[in-house]
């Protein structure tokens, strides 16, 4: 359900916690041989300590945060721009953060722009960017 109360620039949104198990990664990426996401030996051969989650999974978490905030105004009219700055490994725990950065009129609505980032259990940022949607 979307949050309907007034938003303010600087307001922190409720964070999300995500445990990334190999089973989640398998369901997301599809199990394949010679995949850094689902073939541990292949991931190690490519220089990673274990399998990696797809960066795209973090965009789904940001999408969840914005859908909770804006509902239909994100699913129709939302946007996102994210850079993946650190790998996310199987077994990591991510916290997804969002802070309202801008509120601006757009047609008969208000575009809510949110600075978003994901952090792993070590406090390292793994994805950073912005997302927005329409508050009607």
């Amino acid at each position, binding site marked *: 359900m979307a949050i309907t109360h007034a938003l303010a620039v600087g307001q922190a949104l409720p964070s999300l916690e995500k445990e990334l198990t190999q089973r*989640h990664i398998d369901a997301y990426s599809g199990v394949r041989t010679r995949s850094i996401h689902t073939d541990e030996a292949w991931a190690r051969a490519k220089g990673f300590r274990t399998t990696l989650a*797809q*960066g*795209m999974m973090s965009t*789904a978490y940001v*999408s969840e945060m914005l859908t909770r905030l804006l509902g*239909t105004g994100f699913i*129709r009219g939302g*946007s996102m721009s994210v850079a*993946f700055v650190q790998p996310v490994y199987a077994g990591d725990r991510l916290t997804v953060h969002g802070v309202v950065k801008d509120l601006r009129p757009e047609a008969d609505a208000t575009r809510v722009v949110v600075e978003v980032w994901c952090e792993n259990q070590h406090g390292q940022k793994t994805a950073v960017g912005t997302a927005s949607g329409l508050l009607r």
Partner: protein
Amino acid sequence: MIQFTPLTYDALKVGEEFVSDTLLVTPEDVDTYAFAVDDHHSWFSGTSPFGGPVAHPTFAANQALRLRHSRYVVHAGLHAKMQFEFLEPIRVGMRVRSRGRVIDKYVRRGKQYMVTEYVTEDEAGTPLVRGQFTQMLIPA
């Protein structure tokens, strides 16, 4: 018949275009996606303000991300950047297809990158999601 070739920086051409196969958006696939990202919003499985169940907004993103696999054997890669515009909901029962075009390739700090812009459409050609992504190529 497609003649697959290994993806290399040199083989990749700016301007080349890709088209995915068509994907039927099934309730099972939407549910699997919900499990994968641990987001079980009621709109994914029941009624929604759009008149029926819809998929997660990023549901079809992997169809776009794998566009290059329609022509190349991809050794390994890392996703560097992603942009989305969510235009219309992806509804259960739709058949969706993604079209993409390579708009840039570059080398930065010794790493090779490709940039693709894409659109995911329904069977009538209505754009559902537009986006752009940057992928790093990991050499064989």
